[in-house]
């Protein structure tokens, strides 16, 4: 969410600047939209390459890997990087195709070409649908896979706890509470929200949504009347996002 906001602001600023300069938006500026998360293309290449090493390091911390397995994973990661830069090249061609037609009315079209790639740069190339991940899943034997599964789940739980603590810390600024209330809210939230992606833009809505499904008396034991009214307001906001949460697959376990 914040990323989109920053990008939008940047685009607005670029548009303003471009208006004054008769739209001198060139391929360098287009590239800077794509690589703004890391600085430039060269730095992106370096980061992607080191991310492969990092993925291998992570797996090795949890289970031992044979050299042939590491090699297959590395090749798959390089395949992901190549595919990404192929998409960058296609995006550049699409940008050039706009040519002289680039003006203040269709500058957003150019941005829309860059935006998905910019998001990939920020999120990283080795998510669940990547070649690297597929090769990891297909390369490990049962014992290795089980170790990875346990460690991944533990790590996910730690990140969920962080997301919940962050949500509660921010909530405390909007609904002031005592230390005792905060601790009780933490425990009740930890036991009701099992898994969450901290980097998901809908994290706070998901937590509020989950809590809104609890029997009301659970919260009545913790919060006073004014606090309850306030948290109910945030629950109502979260319920308005129900369709979005479903669309994001965040309510799949319901």
């Amino acid at each position, binding site marked *: 969410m914040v990323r989109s906001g920053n990008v939008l602001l940047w685009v607005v600023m670029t548009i303003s600047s471009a208006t004054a300069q008769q739209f001198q938006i060139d391929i360098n500026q287009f590239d800077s939209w794509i690589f703004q998360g890391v600085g430039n293309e060269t730095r992106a290449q370096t980061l992607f390459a080191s991310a492969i090493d990092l993925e291998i390091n992570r797996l090795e911390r949890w289970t031992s890997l044979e050299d042939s397995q590491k090699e297959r994973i590395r090749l798959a990661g390089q395949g992901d990087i190549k595919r990404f830069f192929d998409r960058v090249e296609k995006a550049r061609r699409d940008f050039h195709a706009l040519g002289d037609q680039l003006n203040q009315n269709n500058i957003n079209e150019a941005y829309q070409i860059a935006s998905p790639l910019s998001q990939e740069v920020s999120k990283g190339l080795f998510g669940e649908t990547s070649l690297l991940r597929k090769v990891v899943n297909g390369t490990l034997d049962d014992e290795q896979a089980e170790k990875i599964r346990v460690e991944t789940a533990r790590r996910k739980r730690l*990140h969920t706890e962080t997301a919940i603590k962050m949500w509660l810390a921010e909530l405390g600024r909007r609904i002031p509470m005592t230390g005792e209330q905060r601790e009780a809210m933490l425990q009740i939230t930890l036991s009701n929200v099992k898994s969450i992606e*901290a980097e998901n833009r809908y994290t706070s809505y998901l937590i509020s949504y989950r809590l809104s499904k609890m029997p009301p008396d659970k919260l009545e034991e913790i919060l006073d009347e004014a606090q309850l009214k306030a948290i109910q307001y945030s629950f109502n906001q979260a319920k308005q996002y129900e369709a979005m949460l479903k669309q994001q697959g965040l309510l799949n376990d319901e």
Partner: protein
Amino acid sequence: MQTFLRTFVVLVTITVCGQARSKDRDLGLVNDVAEMIEAAVPKLVESPDFLKPLVNSELSFIKRVCRPTVNQMDKIVVEAKTAFDSMSDMVQGNNQPFVRVGEIRFMGPNQEQLSGNPYGRVRRDAMKYLKPILSEKQFQSYVDETKLRDDFERGAAIWVVIDLMDNKLVLTIEQRQKLYEKLLAGWRDIEISSIQNYVSNPNYMPQVPNNLVDPVLSTEQRSLWNAASQTRVQFQVSIREDNTTFLIHEDWIR
């Protein structure tokens, strides 16, 4: 005093203009003088409304943790209002305040620049005005609860940073815990409202004090961390004043 200064500016300007009417050619000079006087006398700014919910939220916190009598609460609200009025000194208008690298910049809903952290200011003000009003026990409750809240907020933000580091460096559970203890003890100026930006922009890392991090990391992790935290970025924190930001509606200062 404020009225006097305003009046002073207006009066001097009119007087100079009166003398100059007979000499049109001097009008430019007169205007210059008027502008100089305007510039010399500090602009008097009222505390903006968007800071009021922060003060009201702190008063709601005080009510819950100190349990003041009605009479005490009345006095607290009066003092809080005075403290709020003096917060105008934080507002820089459209001037860009000097911000050190790594320091957080706070802004109002209409891009008003603030010098310093308004949440910290509200809490420091309360610490000053509460002492003469509350009993020793009540005041100690505020001190204790404030520390609990600060530690919880900083702790949550620190876990976010540790998760970000974990993603880049593959930390062990022991390293995570050691980092948490070191950062909680030594990193005072971490702020929850800005740290969330790094979750949405994972290619940037907050500026974490090296002396706290280095002893916990391996040589390989240290070099990875140095590379990952090379790009410095400044996120701004916007203070909003709508109902979605401040949920509890106890308007002590209207």
